[in-house]
C-alpha cells in the first residue's frame, strides 16, 4: 500500500478531490465537440393517492440514460419500512441510496423507540438530508404510508421542500398524470376505484411522455397489509412474431449417414478450492 504523508486521518463521506479535475476535463471535452457521460435518470411518472382505508402508490418502470432506455423494467417503488413505501424520480442512484439510508435510519429509530415508525418521521429525515446537500442529490420522491394516525402522503422535492396532500404526482410525466387526477379524484374512494385511478394516471404518463414507459407498478398500503403489485398492468408488451424462418426437419433429403464414436478417457483430475467466505 502506498504511504501518504498526511497529518490527519481522512474523514468519511463525500470527497471533493476530483471536482477540479472533472471541470477541466469537461472543458476539454466540450472543446472537442463530445459530451460527458450522463447519469442514468428515471424520467418518470410516479403518483400517490389517499383513499378511504390507506394509500395507493403507482409508478412506471422505465429508466433512461440520455436518449436511450437503460432499463425496461426497473422498480421505482422502494421499501422504507413495513408500513411506509416511497416512489423515486430523478437520478436513479440518488433515489436508490437516499431511500436505503432513510430505511436504515428508520429501522434503527423504531428499534430505539419500540414503535412502528411514522410517515412524518421519514418525511423529516428525507427533507433534512436533501436540504443539507442543497439539491445536488437529484431525488424527487413520493412518500406514502399508514401509521397510528391514519394514511399520509408526502411529495418531496430535490431541494428539500415537502408537501402533504391527498394526491400527488412527480416526474416528467407528472402533468399528464395530474390531469387524470384532477378530473376523477374524489375523497374517500374505495380501494378498487383508487387502483383504477392510479393505473389510468400512470398510463396517461406512459403514453404521453417520452421519459416514462413499459409497465405499471402499484403498491397498496392499508392497516396491517401491503400489496406490492409488480407488474400490475403490462401496458406495453413487445409484439409476438407471426412468422418463422426456421426450416422444418426433413426439408433436406438425407443420402448417406456415417456414425463415428469418439473414445475419451479421463487423463487427469484436479480440484481447485474456492474461498467462498
Amino acid at each position, binding site marked *: *500500500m502506498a504511504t501518504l504523508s498526511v*497529518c490527519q486521518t481522512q*474523514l468519511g*463521506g463525500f470527497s*471533493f478531490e476530483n471536482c477540479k479535475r472533472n471541470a477541466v476535463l469537461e472543458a476539454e471535452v466540450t472543446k472537442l465537440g463530445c459530451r460527458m457521460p450522463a447519469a442514468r435518470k428515471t424520467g418518470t411518472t410516479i403518483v400517490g393517492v389517499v383513499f378511504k382505508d390507506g394509500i395507493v402508490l403507482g409508478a412506471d418502470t422505465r429508466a433512461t440514460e440520455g436518449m436511450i432506455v437503460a432499463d425496461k423494467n426497473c422498480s421505482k417503488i422502494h421499501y422504507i419500512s413495513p408500513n411506509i413505501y416511497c416512489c423515486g424520480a430523478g437520478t436513479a442512484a440518488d433515489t436508490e*441510496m437516499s431511500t436505503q439510508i432513510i430505511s436504515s435510519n428508520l429501522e434503527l429509530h423504531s428499534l430505539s423507540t419500540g414503535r412502528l415508525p411514522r410517515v412524518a418521521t421519514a418525511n423529516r429525515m428525507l427533507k433534512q438530508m436533501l436540504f443539507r*446537500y442543497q439539491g445536488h442529490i437529484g431525488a424527487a420522491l413520493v412518500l406514502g404510508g399508514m401509521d397510528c394516525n391514519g394514511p399520509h402522503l408526502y411529495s418531496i422535492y430535490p431541494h428539500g421542500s415537502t408537501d402533504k396532500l391527498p394526491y400527488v404526482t412527480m416526474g416528467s410525466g407528472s402533468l399528464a398524470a395530474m390531469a387524470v387526477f384532477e378530473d376523477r379524484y374524489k375523497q374517500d374512494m374505495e380501494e378498487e376505484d383508487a387502483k383504477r385511478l392510479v393505473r389510468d394516471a400512470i398510463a396517461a404518463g406512459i403514453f404521453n411522455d417520452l421519459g416514462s414507459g413499459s409497465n405499471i407498478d402499484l403498491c397498496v398500503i392499508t392497516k396491517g397489509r401491503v400489496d406490492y403489485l409488480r407488474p400490475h398492468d403490462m401496458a406495453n408488451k413487445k409484439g409476438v412474431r407471426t412468422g418463422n424462418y426456421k426450416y422444418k426437419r426433413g426439408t433436406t433429403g438425407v443420402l448417406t449417414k456415417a456414425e463415428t464414436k469418439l473414445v475419451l478417457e479421463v487423463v487427469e483430475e484436479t480440484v481447485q478450492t474456492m474461498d467462498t467466505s
Partner: protein
Amino acid sequence: MNTRGLRSQLKDSVPVTGMGPQVGAYGVQDTLRSGFSSVKNELLPSHALELSEKNFQLNQDKMNFSTLRNIQGLHAPLKLQMEYRAARQIQRLPFLQSSHLALDTLKGNDESISFEDILNDPAQSEMVGEPHIMVEYKLGLM
C-alpha cells in the same frame, strides 16, 4: 438527525473562511508538507458543497449547544463538552483506526447512518498514513 433548527442560533455558526493556505511554523506556506501553493486552488472551493460539508458537524454541534444553553442554562453544554473531551481521548495512535465508540454513543451517531458511514470509509482507505509523521503532528513536535 438534527432536532433543533432555530435560525437565531446561526450567528454562532463557524464562519465560512475559504480554504486558506496551510501555514507552517514560520507563517509561510509549508511547501514540504502541503505542496506548492496556488491562489486559484485556495480562494475558490472546487464544489459548492465543499465548505458547508467540511464544517457541517461543527455547525450542528454549535447550534445544538447554544439551544441547549438557552433552554437549560450554561451548565448543560459545559457538562456535555467535558464528556465529549473525555471520550475523544479514548483513541489509538493517530495512524491506526479507532472505533470512536464512546464518542459516537455520546453524540447519538450509533443510532443513525449517513453518507459518512457508507462512502469513503477511512478504514478502507488505500493509503496508509506514515506513522512517525502522524504521531509527531499529533504531539505538536512538527
